[in-house]
């Protein structure tokens, strides 16, 4: 008996129309929205950066005053970190992980939808505040007391603190969704040592999120309470301490860099493998490196605080940790080089972006080693040298792999390939523009230009390098514009893509491009790391799953380590309640900027919406009972 594709499509499709759009729970619909939203915030953050670069292009420039400039860099940093870099990686995972592990759906699709809406509302709140001239202005790191009740006047820092609440709630929920999907919904036979490396990367990232994000949520909650109800956490005059903020913020903030970077490493492993036409060299070493990076990243936070009053001995420990974390990254870089060296290269745009990574990220990594050293850090800390470093790391380590990933998976998302010619222009303009924009900043930092200055006087002699940097920034803007043009035109007129246009080996390429609503009409059984390259099935061994319901949503749950079949599980149907719950949550979060009572009264609609979300309908239960089979009871 073969599966009924049409019936499966009817069963799994999101409902039509605007109401259906609000009720969507398909991880692919949510994933695409998530990616597009994150890209829009990337563009918004980029435009803010372009405005800053225009202001800094000339000394003593009057284009932007200090008040707006402080909002610009705060918005830029907050957007790029909280609304783009972290969410976009989660977004890619929301779309790709269920496909890569061979699942019909993501675990907790409604929670996943809720997480998206919360993220969207948080981002919109921030930009509405910015356009109403109450954009946060104390930096993306929001140090107290500058952001505290005494010096951070008005509501600006409150919007920042609530942005954190929105994005962290969203990020934490997505992490639970991803971990559970990876642990419990893998195709039968996909043991942990057959996980694609991107899935490993997202597993590590999601665990890091669970333990790092609570720190900034707690810190920002204390901040908003100091501002709103008069707590004294950060007020030295009443027994509080300003450095407490820095510990809590960086205990999150440094792992955060790695949960942007590690998914990028995951993309690279996928790209390099496919375009070298061979599996990545050293899979176990790659996995261990990802895990080691995750652990070590929690031991670095104090290197953001070398200039404060932290004790000397502590500093040496953090220097050692900051240098040691380079080793797992080095392992991966060498393994990729080995893969490229012994592979046969299909030089397409995704691979170009991967190669760009090597040049840029290695520079960023080396300047990172330099920043880990206490004496060197004391000189370049909080100067443009650090601005250069962090963009080399984040753009080289995350954005280049991400653009490569977009070119790579675009045919899977849309069914059409992106243009190669524009892709190459996109790459080269980005690569050249990036280096022109950010290389000079190293020199500016050494010449003493501090970060976060709205202008500088001509006598400082920083004008020429700043002008060059601005030209580079505009080149990047042009390359991103080319990307948008390429994506939009390819969406309509791109070459139609087959299921597996790049000849890749992982499961997402086993299904149509774009995939049907149920992901896999024939649910696969896996016996190899690259199932499409090396089926490796002994004769007589099962190749596909049968017996899951086709007229109702049902997924197969498998065991943690070996992915042996465990039970069938009903997967929830579309519902608008996650959307309404997110609306209610957003009302409470925004309301609490103005009055603490919003937390009390705002909880009531949330509770109602969440109960409505959870409460099973008679029809659903009837259907479920038809298919019910009890597990063996103890």
């Amino acid at each position, binding site marked *: 008996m073969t599966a009924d594709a049409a019936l499966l499509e009817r069963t799994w499709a999101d409902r039509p129309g605007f109401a259906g759009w609000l009720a969507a729970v398909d991880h692919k619909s949510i994933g695409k929205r998530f990616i597009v939203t994150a890209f829009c915030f990337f563009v918004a953050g980029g435009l803010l950066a372009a405005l800053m670069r225009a202001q800094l292009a000339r000394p003593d420039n009057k284009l932007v005053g200090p*008040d707006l400039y*402080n909002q610009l860099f705060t918005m830029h940093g907050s957007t790029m970190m909280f609304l783009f870099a972290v969410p976009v990686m989660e977004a890619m995972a929301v779309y790709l992980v269920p496909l890569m592990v061979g699942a019909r759906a993501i675990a907790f699709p409604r929670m996943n939808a809720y997480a998206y809406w919360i993220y969207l509302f948080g981002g919109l709140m921030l930009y509405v505040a910015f356009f109403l001239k109450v954009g946060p202005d104390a930096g993306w790191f929001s*140090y107290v*007391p*500058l952001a505290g009740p005494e010096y951070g006047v008005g509501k600006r820092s409150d919007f920042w603190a609530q942005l954190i609440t929105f994005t962290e709630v969203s990020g934490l929920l997505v992490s639970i969704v991803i971990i559970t999907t990876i642990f419990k919904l893998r195709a039968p036979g996909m043991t942990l040592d057959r996980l694609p490396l991107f899935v490993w990367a997202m597993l590590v990232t999601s665990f890091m999120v669970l333990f790092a994000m609570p720190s900034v949520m707690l810190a920002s909650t204390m901040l908003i309470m100091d501002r709103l109800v008069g707590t004294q956490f950060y007020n*030295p*005059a009443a027994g509080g301490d*300003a450095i407490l903020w820095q510990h809590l913020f960086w205990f999150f903030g440094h792992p955060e860099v790695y949960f942007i970077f590690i998914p990028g490493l995951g993309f690279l492993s996928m790209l390099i493998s496919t375009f070298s*036409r*061979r*599996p990545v*060299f050293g899979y176990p070493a790659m996995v261990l490196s990802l895990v080691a990076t995750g652990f070590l990243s929690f031991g670095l936070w104090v290197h953001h605080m070398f*200039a*404060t*009053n932290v004790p000397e001995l502590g*500093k*040496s420990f953090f*220097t050692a940790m900051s*240098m040691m974390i380079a*080793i797992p990254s*080095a392992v991966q870089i060498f*393994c990729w*080089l*080995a893969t*490229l*060296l012994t*592979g*046969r290269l*299909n030089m*397409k745009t995704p691979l170009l972006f991967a190669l760009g990574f*090597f040049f840029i990220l*290695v*520079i960023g990594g*080396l300047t990172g*080693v*330099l920043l880990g*050293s*206490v*004496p*060197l850090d*004391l*000189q*370049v*800390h*909080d100067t443009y040298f650090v601005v250069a470093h962090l963009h080399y790391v984040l753009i080289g380590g995350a954005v280049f792999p991400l653009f490569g990933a977009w070119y790579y998976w675009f045919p899977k998302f849309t069914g059409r390939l992106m243009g190669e010619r524009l892709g190459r222009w996109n790459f080269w303009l980005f690569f050249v523009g990036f280096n022109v924009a950010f290389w000079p900043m190293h020199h500016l930092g*050494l*010449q*003493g230009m*501090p970060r*976060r*200055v*709205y*202008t*500088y006087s001509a*006598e*400082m002699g920083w004008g020429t390098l700043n002008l060059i940097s601005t030209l580079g920034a505009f080149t990047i803007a042009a390359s991103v514009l080319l990307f948008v043009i390429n994506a939009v035109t390819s969406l309509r007129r791109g070459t139609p893509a087959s299921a597996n246009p*790049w000849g890749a080996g992982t499961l997402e390429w086993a299904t149509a491009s774009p995939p049907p609503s149920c992901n896999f009409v024939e649910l696969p059984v896996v016996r190899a*790391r*690259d199932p499409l*390259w090396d089926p490796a099935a002994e004769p007589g061994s099962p190749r596909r799953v049968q017996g899951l319901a086709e007229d109702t949503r049902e997924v197969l749950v498998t065991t943690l380590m070996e992915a042996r079949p465990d039970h069938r599980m009903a997967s929830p149907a579309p519902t608008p309640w996650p959307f309404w719950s997110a609306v209610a949550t957003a009302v409470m979060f925004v309301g609490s900027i103005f009055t603490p009572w919003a937390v009390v009264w705002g909880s009531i609609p949330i509770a109602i919406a969440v109960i409505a979300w959870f409460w099973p309908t008679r029809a659903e239960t009837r259907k479920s009972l038809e298919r019910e089979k009890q597990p063996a009871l103890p």
Partner: protein
Amino acid sequence: MIGHALHDALDAAGPQAGHIVHLWWLTVAICTAVFAAVMAALVVALKRAPRAQAGDPPDVSSLTRAEPTLFRAVTAAVAASAVLLMVLLVASIATDRAIASLPGEGALHIEVTGHQWWWAVHYDDAQLDRVFDTANEIHVPVGRPVIVSLESADVIHSFWVPNLHGKKDLIPGHTTSISLRADKPGIYRGQCAEFCGLQHAFMAFEVVASPPAEYEAWAQAQRRPAAEPSDAQAQHGKELFMSGTCMLCHAIDGTTAGARMAPNLTHVASRRTLAAGTLENTPQNLAAWILDPQKAKPGAQMPAHPLDGSDLGALVAYLETLK
């Protein structure tokens, strides 16, 4: 930067910055070598590896056959990286020790308090009559260690004179300190390095390092209270100062003005800059600053003083007597 103040982390004028510059060049050399090696490997890979198309069958032979050469190469590269990192770690810790071990005997003690957006400077001494205050300009004798205690009156700032040493934060509720020594006479620009609000960009100061005798002469002059103005115009200026809003924030030692909210002006005319390194200290700039500080430094805490021409002239004339 006004005049010829130096501002460059790689142009050391003291032992600490000097140690850091040595560590810097060692690190840059190692990093450059590593970068060159990785790029060379990448270029070799791109040149050597044959080209393929998406349709070409993948090479999965590595799944069943070990790749000992690759394994050895990767292991060697990782080991080399680890060794180089150890070298850097040892060098870094050694440099850190060297920086921290500046001998403190006979050190000059200075207390610096950060304000939005200027620096209060207090020269401490066991003898009370040798104590004095100034702002935004720190003079130090060449060759003598200086211990700077750092406090903040409002938000976090960071004290940074790149030619002499790295940064140290000024944290409300805590006292931190940094030790310096200038070995070459010169004027070294310093700057707040921690974002501190609207005028973070123009929160600068200068460290003037001069031979001990010259320094002592300067300090002696700074210890004297302000002289009584001799001419009528300056006398009128002083009356304006004492009867207007100026004295609510500023101090002039030897007069009734003793507020500490804003820079101490006892010897303001002897300083090279105005408004924490924003403007050169000329009578014209001083007059413009008094009229409308927001023009040169939007957000500065000093209000505008729309004085008429003769009053403004008198006030400036008085302040210009405060040498």
